[in-house]
């Protein structure tokens, strides 16, 4: 039996692996891709927050430093390996390039991340309509410009930041539409693209994407306070790419399969596996960290991963309760700081709610 298996090599999984390996736990990190790092390598912007949360450092640099740390600590990494199932008593079904097998571990960390939400409108299945994160992967990882004239849907941080990155890559963002009457993300990002000439249209939506076989144009229109289109305000714009940035949802299939209890919190992305302060789910020995435990940011994923790692080292007897408590307190404090302010407060409240529900089940 293995000691720990971590599913997903993004910031959460990497940090869970690093943190438990730091205290001597033998860890296997599994990732479907040919390189760990998750979505960190497409984040070419500087992170926000304080210095302690690696603010000012670009995502890919954080990715590189986590990779070298995990290497130094001897984390075993299985790449191009898909986890296709999870079964009672911590068995994982995995498929490598050559074989399919079943492995058992004392502890499992699910750090599978999230998937972008789609948005259905006429023409949304046409080639040339893609997630904003997809466009980001295309230009920053694949180095292929996903479009020359772009319509961005959604003014959250993803929509704003990816718009800026599209400009950096040499594209023109023709318009950014937001259904709400105000911008959802940080105003500093909105100001940046606004200065660069992107028109941000609040109370606007996409009516359709059109073109023979692929996107050639889109129609946008103004909407009223009930989100109904105002007739006569339709405007046709020439675009070759429509990007959808309307939030993410947790990739939680493994947690459902494991029988974890869930709660429904729309602001965190939908169904969220209940978890303790140590990031353990309602199934003993199965932990979550990062976006799968509620959509937040890479910086919170890093801290949650650490928490899971410390808690695992503690429960396997590698560190004392006292030492674990001290280490965990640092991460809890860090998370509290990351969840401050008008954007973080809501997340703190919902995370507290998750904890309350978890504790009431466990009658702690």
């Amino acid at each position, binding site marked *: 039996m293995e000691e720990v298996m971590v599913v997903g090599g993004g910031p959460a999984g990497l940090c869970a692996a690093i943190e438990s390996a730091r205290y001597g736990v033998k860890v296997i990190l599994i990732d479907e*891709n040919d390189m760990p790092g998750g979505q960190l390598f497409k984040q070419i912007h500087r992170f926000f927050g304080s210095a302690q949360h690696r603010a000012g450092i670009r995502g890919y640099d954080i990715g590189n430093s986590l990779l070298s740390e995990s290497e130094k600590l001897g984390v075993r990494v299985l790449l191009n390996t898909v986890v296709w199932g999870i079964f009672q008593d911590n068995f994982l079904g995995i498929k490598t390039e050559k074989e399919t097998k079943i492995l058992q571990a004392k502890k499992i960390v699910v750090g599978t991340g999230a998937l972008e939400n789609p948005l259905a409108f006429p023409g949304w299945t*046409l*080639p*040339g309509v893609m997630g904003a994160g997809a*466009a980001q*992967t*295309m230009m*920053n990882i694949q*180095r*292929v410009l996903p479009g020359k004239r772009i319509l961005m849907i959604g003014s959250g941080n993803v929509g704003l930041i990816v718009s800026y990155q599209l400009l950096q890559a040499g594209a023109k963002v023709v318009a950014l539409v937001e259904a709400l009457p105000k911008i959802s993300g940080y105003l500093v990002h909105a100001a940046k693209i606004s200065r660069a000439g992107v028109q941000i249209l609040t109370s606007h939506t996409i009516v359709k994407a059109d073109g023979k076989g692929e996107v050639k144009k889109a129609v946008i229109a103004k909407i009223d306070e009930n989100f109904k289109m105002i007739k006569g305000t339709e405007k046709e714009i020439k675009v070759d790419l429509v990007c959808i940035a309307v939030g993410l949802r947790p990739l939680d299939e493994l947690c459902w399969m494991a029988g974890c209890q869930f709660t429904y919190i729309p602001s965190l992305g939908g169904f969220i596996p209940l978890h303790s302060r140590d990031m353990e789910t309602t199934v003993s020995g199965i932990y979550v960290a990062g976006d799968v435990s509620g959509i937040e940011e890479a910086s919170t994923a890093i801290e949650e991963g650490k928490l899971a790692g410390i808690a695992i080292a503690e429960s396997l007897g590698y560190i004392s309760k006292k030492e674990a408590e001290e280490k965990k307190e640092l991460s809890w404090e860090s998370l509290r700081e990351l969840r401050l302010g008008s954007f973080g407060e809501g997340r703190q409240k919902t995370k507290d709610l998750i904890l309350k529900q978890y504790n009431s089940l466990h009658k702690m």
Partner: protein
Amino acid sequence: MKDLRIKKHPILGEAKFGKKITIFVDGKKFSAYEGEMIASALYAKGIRKLRATSKFKEPRGIFCAIGRCTDCVMTVNGVPNIRTCITPVQSGMRVKTQKGLGKWKK
């Protein structure tokens, strides 16, 4: 001919593309670089339609670009339903626009 590859980037700098190789797309010779994913190599040259749906024959292309949505599946070396956004090109590879669920090579 148009090439959407980003050679220079203000943050990421000069791109380091791999060795130039030849693959076959719907039977035609096609240039790509080692290390690229099939879908992005095609996209760079303006090929965005990767398959047609079973019932209505509607075009589909890259949607999530991280191997989750399966909208970009094509038939690769005779094997249908390969997620081309996360499958790297290989010299001599045969890539085919997929119709519906595709067919296994007999």
